[in-house]
């Protein structure tokens, strides 16, 4: 099956970002021994390896595998590696970058992939790499530090600053407005919600590679997609994508049995991997189900004891053993092959889900199969409520959905000047009419330049619930999503 140019272009862009991330993390782990950087390196390489296989970049896949070997050795040594080793990792990353950049039809005759792989093998030999044995203890614990990535939590914390930047820009004029536009747009692009669509078409790209992988392992599989199309953020889509990649590969490699073994158990010779995507209760849930042999918890338990992850003789339930399976570096395989065995896949899936406040769980039954389930919270992306135009403000104000319009004039409303409430010059308008709103507890009046009407707004900049406003768009026009109870002086 031919890989589309679009998919290859997408792979190239994503792969280069991954390589840059690995390079930065590699330099960081060598200088400060940061555990988070170490884990990022492992996850990114493993994911890049899987992705490169999907798009048929077998050369990149091969160098990825060698790079994983190098990182295994470095990690086992607590990253106390010499310059020779550092050079090898650096060149391997650059070699991959070159392979990713190469164009179909261009002259590739000068690239000596076997020679380069021999070079890496030589470095591994010099550093006493012993055939990828994993029988030793877990890698040494490195120092933990706060991730510098722009997490959703950090974005929310920066949200109020972005709201201020928007308000200042929106009311500014002339050259000042041009200058503030640049600041607002920078913040908006940096921390604004970016939307993406998760769909069967998006995840279907993993089907050919899963079938090919199974074939290489002497297995036959069907991959079935039951994916509900949903609007999510780009971060959620990326996490779903990583989960689909690793869980499908794991199912093909570890879950589904060879045809003969299946037939002996009165199963169809061809195994089935079913991906189910459901949007529910503010989460997107991806389930990857296989009808394979199920998780062998005795084997997991024995391996966990061997690696010192659980004490010998301790009573450990299956839920805990599933957690152990997601531990960085855990694998029931004693040796890594080109597909699995490094204990990175499940760790990568869990980490990308947990980073977004989600979770990874498993249900399994011996002889029947396993279902891995990734649940990731999806922020509320759309809001339907009243919008008003306020004197002195040139952008729409959308009220938080907990507020509604009052039909009659309340006896003792709190009247607010929105411009002043936002820290701007008071509008002092005398020509506008007032509308009154309530959230069931408070009643406030606001000067409105129009009759409040219902709109569909899309959240753009999120803020903590204690902030006065967020930024949202109505028909692509930027405005404020207002929490009237957070206006100074409104709360008793």
């Amino acid at each position, binding site marked *: 099956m031919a890989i589309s140019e679009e998919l290859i272009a997408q792979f190239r862009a994503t792969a280069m970002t991954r390589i840059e991330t690995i390079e930065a993390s590699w330099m960081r782990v060598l200088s400060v021994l940061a555990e988070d950087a170490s884990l990022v390196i492992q996850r990114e390489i493993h994911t890049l390896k899987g992705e490169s296989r999907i798009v048929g970049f077998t050369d990149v896949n091969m160098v990825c595998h060698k790079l994983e070997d190098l990182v295994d050795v470095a990690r086992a040594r607590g990253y106390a590696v010499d310059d020779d080793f550092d050079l090898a990792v650096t*060149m391997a990353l650059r070699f991959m970058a*070159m392979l990713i950049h190469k164009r179909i039809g261009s002259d590739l005759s000068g690239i000596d992939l076997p*020679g380069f792989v021999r070079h890496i093998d030589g470095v591994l030999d*010099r550093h006493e790499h012993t055939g990828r044995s994993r029988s030793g203890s877990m890698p040494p614990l490195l120092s933990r530090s706060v991730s510098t990535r722009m997490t959703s939590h950090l974005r929310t914390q920066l949200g109020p600053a972005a709201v201020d930047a928007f308000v200042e820009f929106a009311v500014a004029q002339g050259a000042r407005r041009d200058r503030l536009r640049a600041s607002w747009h920078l913040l908006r692009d940096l921390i604004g919600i970016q939307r993406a669509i998760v769909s069967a078409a998006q995840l279907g790209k993993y089907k050919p590679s899963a079938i090919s992988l199974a074939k290489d392992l002497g297995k036959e599989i069907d991959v079935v997609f039951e994916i509900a199309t949903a609007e999510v953020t780009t971060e959620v889509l990326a996490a779903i994508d990583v989960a689909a990649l690793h869980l499908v590969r794991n199912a093909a490699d570890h879950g589904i049995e060879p045809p003969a073994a299946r037939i002996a158990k009165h199963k169809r010779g061809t195994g089935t991997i079913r991906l189910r995507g459901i949007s529910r209760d503010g989460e997107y849930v991806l389930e990857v189900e296989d009808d394979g042999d199920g998780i062998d918890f005795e084997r997991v338990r024995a391996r966990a004891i061997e690696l010192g992850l659980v004490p010998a003789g301790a009573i450990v339930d299956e839920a805990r053993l599933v957690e152990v399976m997601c531990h960085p570096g855990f694998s029931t395989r004693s040796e890594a092959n080109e597909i699995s065995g490094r204990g990175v896949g499940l760790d990568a899936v869990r980490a990308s889900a947990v980073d977004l406040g989600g979770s990874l769980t498993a249900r399994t039954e011996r002889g029947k199969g396993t279902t891995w389930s990734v649940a990731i919270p999806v922020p509320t992306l759309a809001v339907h409520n009243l919008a008003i135009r306020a004197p002195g403000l040139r952008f729409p104000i959308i009220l938080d959905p907990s507020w509604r319009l009052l039909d009659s004039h309340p006896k003792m409303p709190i009247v607010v000047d929105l411009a002043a409430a936002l820290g701007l010059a008071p509008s002092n308008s005398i020509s506008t009419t007032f509308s009154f709103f309530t959230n069931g507890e408070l009643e406030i009046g606001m000067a409105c330049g129009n009759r409040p009407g219902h709109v569909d707004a899309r959240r753009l900049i999120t803020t903590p619930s204690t902030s006065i406003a967020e930024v949202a768009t109505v028909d692509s026009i930027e405005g404020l999503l207002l929490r009237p109870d957070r206006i100074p002086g409104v709360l008793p």
Partner: protein
Amino acid sequence: MAVRLRVPPVDDPDFFAEVDFTTGAVLRLVGSADTIATPELAALLQTLHGELIAKALPEIVVDLRDLDFMAATCVRELVHWIEGARYKIRLRSNPTIVWQRHALPALSCFDTTLVTVEV
């Protein structure tokens, strides 16, 4: 006599680089190319690339025989230069220096039609 490039060559207490166009093009790197030398080396290689293209020179010799050490960040710049090269690059090496013995053959793997290692 060396004909210098228009930009100042890299010259710090530990690392020295110069280009000689007297007989073809020769880039000589001497000393220890530590991380701190990376921006200067990158700038030098970028200018050198422009000069080689402008002069339509078919090849350049990179004399590394007295280069005791090269940090990974500097090698990264060297790789970047090789990726954009449209001329042959002959790496003149010193096999008694360990990093050269190990790393230079790998460097030639990026493009064996352009990069050769001479002992």
